[in-house]
């Protein structure tokens, strides 16, 4: 059975580094429907920036390709898939290790996956050599309880 979502968006763009800001801002704008805090929004922007950058510089290297983002809202959770049809990752477990990078000469820090894992609640990587890579991340946006109670009180006293 198909899973039911409250909302969904899709975004495709060419693997140019000048699109990184546009990509993370678009997902952040979509996520703002869940009323996240500034900190939660920063977490999402950073994680998206890491995954998109990886598709551009590692997945496609100097070649041009399409980076695809699908984002869905379900309850108070945001799910974000970022995929490329680039060269793929040989060993995902090794790639995820902190400080591991295959491009140290380009001043990469090897912190991308570590940041995605700690800024989001869940992160999964599927990759096939020669076919591409898909990163799926999700985060629960904590409901703002106090504000809701305040609003409830206002509604009940007004009626």
């Amino acid at each position, binding site marked *: 059975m198909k899973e039911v979502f409250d909302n969904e968006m899709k975004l495709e763009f060419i693997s140019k*580094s*000048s699109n990184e*800001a546009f990509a993370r801002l678009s997902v952040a704008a979509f996520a703002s429907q869940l009323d996240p805090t500034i900190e939660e929004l*920063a977490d999402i922007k950073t994680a998206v920036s890491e995954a998109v*950058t990886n598709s551009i510089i590692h997945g496609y290297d100097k070649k041009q390709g399409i980076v695809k983002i699908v984002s869905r809202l379900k309850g108070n959770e945001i799910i974000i898939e970022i995929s490329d049809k680039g060269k793929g990752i040989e060993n995902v477990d090794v790639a995820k290790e902190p400080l591991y990078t295959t491009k140290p000469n380009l*001043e990469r*820090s090897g*912190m991308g996956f570590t*940041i995605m894992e700690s800024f989001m609640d869940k992160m999964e990587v599927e990759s096939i050599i020669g076919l591409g890579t898909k990163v799926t991340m999700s985060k629960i946006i904590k409901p703002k309880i106090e504000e809701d109670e305040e609003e409830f009180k206002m509604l009940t006293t007004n009626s």
Partner: protein
Amino acid sequence: MESEFYEKDKLLIFKITDEIDDHTVQMIRRRADYEMERYMPKRVIFDFDSVTFMDSAGIGLLIGRYKFANMIGAKLEITNLTGSVRRIFDMSGILKLIPVC
């Protein structure tokens, strides 16, 4: 990015005003290395006060500038780390290498 050089103290300050990602670091890196070579400072400070976004490209940028500063005999420091910028620096462990002033 804005920069100021104080001849008397041989102090070069870079105030980063852009969002820091893999795209923008290329320009920041080029300009920082160019100015360090030009002024030959003894002390270099990167000011993050106006940085509204940074991902792991910022860590690579700082490690690279740390090495470059060492090469020309300058001491590198960073200042005004807040919010998620601070968290990324803490996570990376490079604050053991580069002092916060």
